[in-house]
Each structure stands twice: as C-alpha cells, then as structure tokens.
C-alpha cells in the first residue's frame, strides 16, 4: 500500500507525457519526424502547413484537454469536500446544466453577452441553489437528487429554447453540447492554464480549511473556519471555472466526478495538499485518453462525441465507487 501511491504517481506521470507526445505527434495530416521537429522549434519554413497544424490545431487542443482535465478534477475534489459527498461533481449537481442554460440563452435566444459570462452566471445560480438546499437536507443523497431535479428543470428550459431556435444556431448548440477540446485557440488554452494556476494557489492557501471542513461544518466553525467566507470563495471559484470550461469545451460529463476517485483508488493520502497533484495528473490523463479516442474515431470516420467517450470511462468508475464503499465513503 505504501509503495502503491508513488508507483501509481510515476505511471500517471509517464502516461501523461506519452499521451501529450502522441497527441502532438500524431494526427490526420501525416508529418515525418523532421518536419515535426522543425515545426516544434520553428526552425523550418515559417508558416508552413506543419507549423500551422502543430501550433494552431494540435497544441491548443492538447493543452485545452489537459487544463480542462486538471480543472474539472480539482473541482470534483472541491465539490466532494464542500458537500461532503463522494458522488458530488459539476455534472451531477446540475452545475454544468446551469452553464448549458446560460450558453443556450446566449446562443439560441441571442442574448448579447459572451458565452463564458452566460455560462458562469448559469453555473453560479445553480451553485447558490444547491448550497442553500444542502443546508436543509441532512442526507447527501437528497442533495444529489435535488441536483438531479435542477438539471431536469434546466434541461427542459434548454429544450424549450431549442424548439424555437433557428436551424443554424440549433446545430452549433447541439455540437457544443457533445463536448470537444478542439474548438479553442492558443489564447483560450492559455486562459485555462491561468485558471489552473489560480485554482492551485487557492487550494494550497485554503488546504487547512478544506481539510478541516471534512470534519463537518459545525466542527470547522469551532476550529476557526469562517463558513461564509469559505463557501463564498468556493462558490465564486467553481462558478467561474465550470463556466469557463463549459463555454469552451461544452458540458463535460463525469470528468469532475470520476477523477478524484481514480486518484483515491491508487493513493492513500486524503489531505487536500497531498491529493491535488495526483488528482491533477489523473484529470489530465483521463482527458487526453478520452480525446485520443475521439481523435482516433474521427480519423476512422465514425466521429464519437467526447461526452459519449467520457461517459464510457466515467460511469463504470462511479459504479465501482458505489460497489466498493457501501459503508466507508472516505
């Protein structure tokens, strides 16, 4: 058990490097290794097709996938701590559907705000609802059911918007809903990277409060945590992160919920500072793996949507969690 976590960590690290390399190296447009090398270092012809493909297609896609994986993994960890619920996650609690509604309002109903603002606002509204409701519900399962009801209600609102939308906007919305890492440019990938940094700083700064929170809200309060401030910060952070990721990549399912459990399966440590590295690593690995499947099927012509692949990975993880831990949720 003591050896398991460093070995798993090293495997994850190696997988991450290999996957990132494959994603950058391999693609529908073949490149021989010299062209690729030149494109990486910019030593070939400037603005050759290879440079363009590498820097404007593969790099942003790879970095977006990694950053989104890291962010959603951390968010899953934070939400699971916040609601003291191992099955919490941005998708399950209806937070991403709140983002979808925001995007639907922006894209389908022609609201003149940037999609990421609309998505963040939608996420924040649902988060506030869930946070208020979870105070009332004693059982974590009730909170989950509440989140499910919220996503149904929000989903029906989105359907109503779809019914009266134009064909083109409907089409772009449906494609967005399937999820993809391939729609963002280098700047957007960079902005996700910046969010990763912000999140990392917050988690490190608040790791004491996060750990204390696992003992229960009442205990945390008597141990010096200010619940209003703690939850306010969490609310803002998760709203912005899920909103931004959702507006760029679509409402991604399972990545946030499953990643912390994949990490916990391999590692014993449960303090947030000890978990954040592993969760980030697995988040990036899972995102790259799923996007790898998407890209392979794209090349083969069958075009599997990212969300379908994520569900294929994620659902068994959740079932395994339920199966294994009927008593001990930690």
């Amino acid at each position, binding site marked *: 058990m003591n050896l398991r976590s460093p070995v798993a960590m090293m495997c994850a690290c190696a997988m991450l490097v290999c996957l990132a390399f494959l994603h950058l190296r391999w693609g529908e447009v073949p490149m021989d290794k010299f062209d690729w090398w030149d494109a990486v270092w910019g030593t070939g012809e400037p603005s050759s097709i290879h440079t363009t493909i590498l820097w404007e297609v593969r790099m942003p896609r790879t970095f977006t996938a990694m950053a989104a994986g890291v962010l959603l993994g951390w968010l899953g960890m934070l939400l699971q701590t916040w609601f003291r619920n191992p099955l919490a996650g941005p998708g399950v609690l209806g937070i991403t559907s709140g983002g979808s509604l925001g995007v639907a309002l922006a894209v389908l109903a022609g609201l003149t705000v940037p999609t990421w603002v609309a998505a963040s606002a939608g996420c924040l509204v649902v988060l506030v609802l869930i946070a208020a409701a979870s105070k009332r519900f004693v059982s974590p399962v009730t909170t989950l059911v509440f989140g499910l009801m919220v996503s149904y209600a929000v989903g029906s609102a989105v359907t109503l918007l779809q019914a009266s939308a134009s064909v083109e906007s409907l089409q772009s919305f449906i494609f967005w809903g399937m999820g993809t890492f391939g729609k963002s440019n280098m700047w957007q990938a960079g902005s996700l990277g910046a969010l990763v940094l912000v999140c990392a700083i917050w988690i490190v700064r608040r790791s004491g409060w996060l750990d204390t929170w696992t003992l229960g809200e009442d205990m945390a309060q008597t141990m010096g945590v200010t619940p209003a401030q703690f939850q306010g910060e969490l609310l803002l952070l998760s709203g912005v992160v899920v909103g931004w990721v959702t507006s760029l990549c679509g409402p991604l399912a399972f990545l946030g919920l499953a990643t912390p459990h994949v990490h916990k399966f391999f590692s014993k440590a449960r303090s947030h500072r000890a978990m954040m590295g592993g969760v980030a690593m697995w988040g990036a690995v899972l995102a790259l793996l799923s996007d790898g499947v998407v890209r392979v099927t794209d090349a083969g012509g069958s075009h599997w949507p990212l969300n379908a692949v994520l569900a294929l990975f994620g659902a068994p993880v959740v079932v395994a969690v339920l199966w294994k831990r009927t008593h001990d*949720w930690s």
Partner: protein
Amino acid sequence: MNLKASNLVVGHSPERVLLGPLDHAWKAGGMHLVLGGNGSGKSTLLRTLVQAHPALSGEVSMSDGKQKLRPKERATWTKAIAFVSSRPPQQVGLTVKEVWALSGNPSEVEDWHPDLMGLAAFRLSELSDGQAQQVMVARAMLQSNRWLVLDEPTAFLDVQAQRRLWSMLDGHVARGGGVLMATHDLWGVERWSEAQFEATLALSSLTMIRRGNLRALPLNSSKEDLSELLA
C-alpha cells in the same frame, strides 16, 4: 478565563426558544457539568456557546476581569475554547495525525494519552466510535488549553473507552484547563463528585436545565436528588 453567557437566548427560531434569556458564568478551570433530560436544550446551549449554532439573541464572551474576549476575534477565540460533539465525525479520510495537525502539534498527545499515538497512522474512518471520540478529545485539547466543551462525549462509548476519556479530561483539568460538559450520565456526575479525588479534580460546578432556564445546584447533591430533578 471565565466563560460567560449574557442575556443569551438559545433555540432554533424565535418561535422555538429552548432556553433563556440566560445569565451565567462558568469559572475558569475545573470540571463543570450541565445536566438536563433529553430535549432540554443541553446540546443547543453548548453549540451556541462554541459558536457552532447562532444565538437567537444575547452574547457569549470570555473574560478574566482585565481582558474580555469575544467570538468575533476568531483566531484568539478558537485558541481558548474547543468543542467535542457527541458523535465523532463520520467518513473522514484524514489520518488521526492529520486531524491533530489541524489543531496543533500531534506529538503533544504523547504526554496526555500515549496509547492514542498507536492510532496516529490510521484514518479516522477506520476507527471505532470510541477510539475516534478519544482522538477528537485529544484534538480539542491541542486546540485549546483553556475551555473544552463536550456534548455528552461518553454517550456511545464502552466502559473502557469512557475510563480513558475521563482520564484525559482529568489531565486537562489538572493542567488548569476548564471542562464544560453536558451529560445525563449520573454515574459520571457521581464520579466527579466522589471525595476520593484530589480537590483540583473534583467537580467545580453543577448546573441543571429546567423549564427553559439554567439553575445552579449544590455540588454535594446525591444521585437520588439528581435523578429526581431530571425526571
């Protein structure tokens, strides 16, 4: 520092007042017990005192004549008063050592209860309720060397675990700390009022909740008197 309730009204909503308005001060140091039957509002009173539950009105403070400490000064306040609830937290993945480290230096526990150090590497969720409760008492002692507020800490414990827990509290009181405990365990009361204990360890005050108010009781109340009052 004395722990003081001034005009304190305890309850869940203005329509459901449990206790108060209370004016009461618990003197620094020693063992203080609050008695009351089920549903009398013992737990809510304690939770209000440690700020885990909002007071309906009035205030809680600590003072030693010169200095007054209010819950708003959170960092200083939480160093002077720590809480142990009746049931240890469930499903906590942190190790015992990590839990202690949240409140102080884990190696100090060695002096108070050497046996507990053997549990340091276990997760809190892997322990029995009795073990976990002792861990939580040790944690509270790391947090505060003044007041420990305990809500029926022995309710779920077997005899052995109860004895261990009492001995930790003995130690805390002997080092000059104060313990405020809610209980309906008359055996526990009797134990603390028994004459064979050293004077410092004996019961310092006994209060009872009756008809929405707090009432001081004579320390030498017999068990029969108490059980009559509790009925």
